[in-house]
């Protein structure tokens, strides 16, 4: 199919060079043939760009490109209208509407990962019953987080830290004072902290987070980006002292599971629902989006003037409204180390390797 499609193009370009400038009609005729082949080839040839990229002449290439694009849009519109008609007809007749075609989403097209965790997996459960976070999840060890910074933090870091201290209910801040990180790990472990968070700043940009679980738990190094302080968010609120709820989304693989547990062990296990405060860690494409909201459930009456049944005109629905508190930022995992901090000579559980990045649809968390 691809071959059949290529030939007319080649023929076309050779012709263009050899003969006199052809009329648009001539072009139209030739590209009429192309169209037929192209429509077939679209399925096999990839994107329209990939199909037309062989043509070196920019004008011809762009003509063919727009032609193919136009056809594609026409056929799509036609399909859509057809589908809408079918749905309308099915609704009229009271039958089931025809099934919707499957949309290609990121989750659909993600490269299959054999480390996805099955919720009933006995071995994974046995492992997690006894890992570094088990004490936290069995309520035997309440969280106590020590926050510190890189050397010589600036004012931006201080305002960010004040907001982080509001986000994390069990956190304390200590100045860095030039201590080497391995010593800080030891100090914190001696004073019974459960986690150590070190924020890194470079040229007035906060760009890194090192999360060390103590006493000898894993160390995760993140890149922090897209930071927006709460005070810069329009309509923001101030957090109360209630213990927040936690939402962890899409931590699917084994590594993701472990990261989810690590982030969850920063927060106490007994949220106060009356505070209506929620912290969300949403993982998508290996980026962890951190958000901090206050929510409220409200009943709303919706009017449906088109409804035929007078009883259904006023509908009551419960909707949630959100107010954003605190900072919002994005984290990306750079490495996960098995012991406490030893960035060069430790044993790593996960490192991003070039040879593992086999496609743009391959994610690890």
């Amino acid at each position, binding site marked *: 199919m691809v071959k059949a499609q290529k030939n007319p193009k080649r023929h076309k370009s050779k012709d263009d060079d050899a003969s006199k400038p052809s009329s648009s009609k001539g072009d139209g005729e030739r590209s009429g043939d192309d169209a037929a082949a192209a429509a077939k080839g679209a399925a096999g040839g990839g994107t329209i760009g990939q199909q037309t990229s062989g043509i070196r002449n920019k004008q011809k290439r762009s003509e063919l490109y727009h032609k193919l694009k136009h056809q594609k849009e026409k056929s799509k519109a036609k399909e859509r209208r057809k589908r809408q008609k079918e749905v309308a007809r099915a609704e009229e007749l009271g039958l089931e509407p025809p099934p919707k075609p499957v949309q290609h989403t990121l989750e659909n097209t993600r490269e299959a990962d054999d480390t996805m965790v099955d919720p009933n997996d*006995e071995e994974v459960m046995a492992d997690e019953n006894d890992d570094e976070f088990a004490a936290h999840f069995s309520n035997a060890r309440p969280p106590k987080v020590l926050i510190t910074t890189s050397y010589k933090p600036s004012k931006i870091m201080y305002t960010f830290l004040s907001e982080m201290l509001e986000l994390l209910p069990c956190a304390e801040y200590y100045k860095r004072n030039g201590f080497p990180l391995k010593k800080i790990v030891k100090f914190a472990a001696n004073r019974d902290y459960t986690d150590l968070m070190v924020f890194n700043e470079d040229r007035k940009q906060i760009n890194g987070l090192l999360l060390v679980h103590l006493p000898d738990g894993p160390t995760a190094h993140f890149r922090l980006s897209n930071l927006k302080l709460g005070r810069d968010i329009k309509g923001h609120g101030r957090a109360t002292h209630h213990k927040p709820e936690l939402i962890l989304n899409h931590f699917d693989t084994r590594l993701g599971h472990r990261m989810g547990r690590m982030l969850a062990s920063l927060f106490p296990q007994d949220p106060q629902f009356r505070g209506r405060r929620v912290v969300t860690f949403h993982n998508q494409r290996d980026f962890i989006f951190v958000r901090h909201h206050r929510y409220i459930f409200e009943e709303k009456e919706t009017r449906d003037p088109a409804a035929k049944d007078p009883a259904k005109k006023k509908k009551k629905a419960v909707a949630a409204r959100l107010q954003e508190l605190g900072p919002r930022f994005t984290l990306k995992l750079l490495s996960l180390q*098995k012991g406490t901090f030893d960035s060069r000579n430790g044993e790593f559980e996960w490192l991003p*390797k070039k040879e593992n990045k086999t496609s743009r649809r391959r994610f690890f968390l």
Partner: protein
Amino acid sequence: MGEGGKRKAQQEEAPAPPSHRILTSDELGLLKVTEVPAGSKWEETAAKQRWGQPDKQQGVTRLQVHCPDWDQDRILIAAGRAGGRVTLHCPASAPADGSVSGLGSRDLGSFRAAPPATTSGRSDTSSHELRGLRFAPGGEGSQRLRLVTATAGGHVAVHEWEAQEGADQQQQQQGGDNEDEDGGGGDGGVVRTWQQQQHWREVVRLQTVGDLQGMDVSSSGRYVAVGGEGHQLRVWDLTAAAAAAAGGTGSSSASGPAPEPLFAGKAGKPSRSGLQDLAHVTAVSYVPGRDDQLVLVGTAKHKLWLYDMRAGRKPQSEVVWSDGRITALLPQADGSLVWVGNGRGQVEALDLRQAPGRVTMGHALKGSAGSIRSLSLHPSQPLIASVSLDRHLRVHSTTSRQLLTKVYLKQALTGVAWLPAPTKGPGPVRGGAGDDEGEVDGEEDGDDDDEDEADEEEGRGGRAARGREQPSGGGKAPRRRDMARQQGSGGKDHAKGKDKGSRDKGAKEKRGKDKSQKRARRDGGDDA
């Protein structure tokens, strides 16, 4: 995904035996056997058997396999556990008549590798963790097999396999009557099968360095080299230690002064800025074929030092190799190459052919995302298996450096070894029991004492049947059908694969590998 094909269909009459078998151990104390289907179909490699119950206190820290002559009937597996015990296993072999057999593992007993407790009551056992485990030939020309163990606290002990006279062939087949019987296969160099419970007795014991992290035994079995955090390489002479202990008071060997090391290495050169690394040896390996004089040491500071005991205390060559502590050292049998794995997941080979003059690293094997915990070379083919903290087993070709297969094994893996692949197909009955995940073998635990019954095959079959009556998580239809078949026929020639299911590639073989027998497996490491 590893275990897809197993669930399909049933077995055929004579499934082809797998071309390779690899044994791995992990932090939960499980031993898993991964098989490559016949014809070296690497893309269908899957974990087939799982031995043991998940229990972190019994996590395996070191794994060694002893297989003289690469004979599949004489495999002895020693697993060093976190609590200081060494458990011994062997894969239960298929009996010659091809009937049902327990192709699980057979627990052959265990012994304690840690020093005797000096205080009563609970003490800190973290120093009893096994950090070194090696099979060694017997001392003074005896034929007995020895196992040298080293704990984190520095206690090195040599255990010898005690052979007893008068064990008959019959007992070998039946596996002995009770667990107290000292396994003694025919002594004196005849074919020994490891089918009995074994008794290992401690022969030599010595206290070496504290916080031991690497240990290796020379090929003659005479010297043991250790290194640890805060200690450079030290080599002890085991025969001298044995003589000292024997010639000493004769009472508990803890008496008497600790023997002096034969050789104490010094650190290599300081770095360019004049800083000397703190002593932290993480891996030690004797280079074979050099008359036990050449020792390769890997440090936590990504350096490799080659010591020649005859030439001097400082290392003869030093290689600084990228970042990351050296976690695994594996020499090839001819001593020309040493495969090195580090904490960043890199595996390369150190070329010693022109040592000590010119020592180079090369042959990188790519793909591991986590620290390499263990490496294992196939004895005859150019294959190397590596196991890492990212929970995968990888097999590379040593000649082309290509990644042949990668298997996800769910736990942080700690040890790997090649097993000989069975030469004949296992008997026609292998219930196609499903995969490891859904199984809960609680009911198997109490059966260890019965394992050496005379009719253990039936016993196993019966136990397997009982085991399978409980639907384990995610019981699959084919599996239940198998169970029914298994129970019914008692394992003769059934296998009329009902649902033809996949005749495809390894599927038959998968069954062959007895998932059913996995049910009947013994619990490893139970008698702590």
